[in-house]
């Protein structure tokens, strides 16, 4: 177990820079941000996904992620591990069904889970039109999602303000889709 541990952030500013990048990405859905932190994450995580986990998790959250990354994250942030249906943060390598994830409650919608989709590339896949808060008018981009995923995304708007947020990660880049974003395949 211990042989595969690699260093995390070496100072608090790295964590703060990542938090800022995620905040910016969440405020501008569909816009790609690049992280330039020096980090050597476990093989199953991209740098962007590893940075998100280091910046956002601590001992009060539950995370579902690949086994080889679990020891690493628990060592650095003390996060708890849980199956995806109970987790606050879920790491997946491909678009998966989001209907099982915790969407929070009407009293506490902020408890909705965040899905980190760790994919090979951000700008390939199906063409989608994004609109909603944070987007002037609408934008059309390619995202590595499936039509199934887009249908589930549309369905979760019926539960607003509950729902899950998504951060797409690839290499050092990330792109966020808060639950308020409207997405349609074109």
């Amino acid at each position, binding site marked *: 177990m*211990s042989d595969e*541990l*690699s*260093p*995390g952030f*070496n100072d608090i500013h790295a964590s703060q820079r990542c938090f800022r990048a995620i905040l910016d990405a969440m405020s501008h859905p569909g816009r790609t941000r690049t992280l330039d932190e020096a980090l050597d994450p476990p093989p199953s995580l991209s740098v962007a996904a590893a940075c998100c986990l280091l910046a956002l998790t601590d001992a009060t959250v539950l995370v579902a992620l690949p086994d080889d990354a679990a020891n690493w994250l628990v*060592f*650095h942030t003390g996060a708890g591990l849980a199956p995806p249906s109970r987790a606050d943060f879920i790491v997946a390598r491909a678009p998966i069904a989001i209907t099982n994830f915790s969407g929070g409650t009407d009293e506490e919608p902020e408890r909705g889970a965040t899905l980190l989709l760790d994919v090979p590339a951000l700008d390939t896949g199906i063409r989608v039109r994004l609109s909603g808060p944070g987007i002037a008018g609408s934008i059309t981009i390619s995202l590595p999602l499936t039509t199934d995923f887009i249908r589930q995304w549309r369905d979760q708007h019926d539960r607003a303000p509950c729902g899950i947020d998504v951060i797409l990660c690839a290499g050092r880049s990330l792109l966020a889709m808060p639950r308020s974003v409207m997405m349609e395949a074109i």
Partner: protein
Amino acid sequence: MLLDPATDLRARPTWLGILARADADRIAHCLTDAPALPDFTRLRGPETGMAMIRARMGGSGAAFNVGEITIARCTIRDVTGRIGHGYATGRDLVHAELVARIDAALQNPVLQDRLIDAVVAPLAAEIAARRAAIEAQAQATEVKFFTLASMRS
């Protein structure tokens, strides 16, 4: 703790406790007689933080928080892949890192004997001597209370 000459210095919790109680200068001094510590990478820290000290009322009653204490900690991996942890009270980051490096080296059978002899054993003896001196001092000023039985019936 540690007064017993039979204490096994080769137990990891024991050597970590001894190293944590020494200070960085003393450890560095002991290391001059020891084999060089392997090169290493820092996995976490060295960094300072707080730990909550817990205790029980009367030693066995309900648990309560005594207060927080400043600690320094560090985790390293040496070139052989061994992970070393160092925790010590106070803010001495050099101390925490030294403890972590020695902890990693002590897990290496090739280095263990020489490091125990050069570093852990002398430090354990110092701690035992310090403890014995304090106990002797306390013994000398001990007041023995005894009850005078009342003669009245």
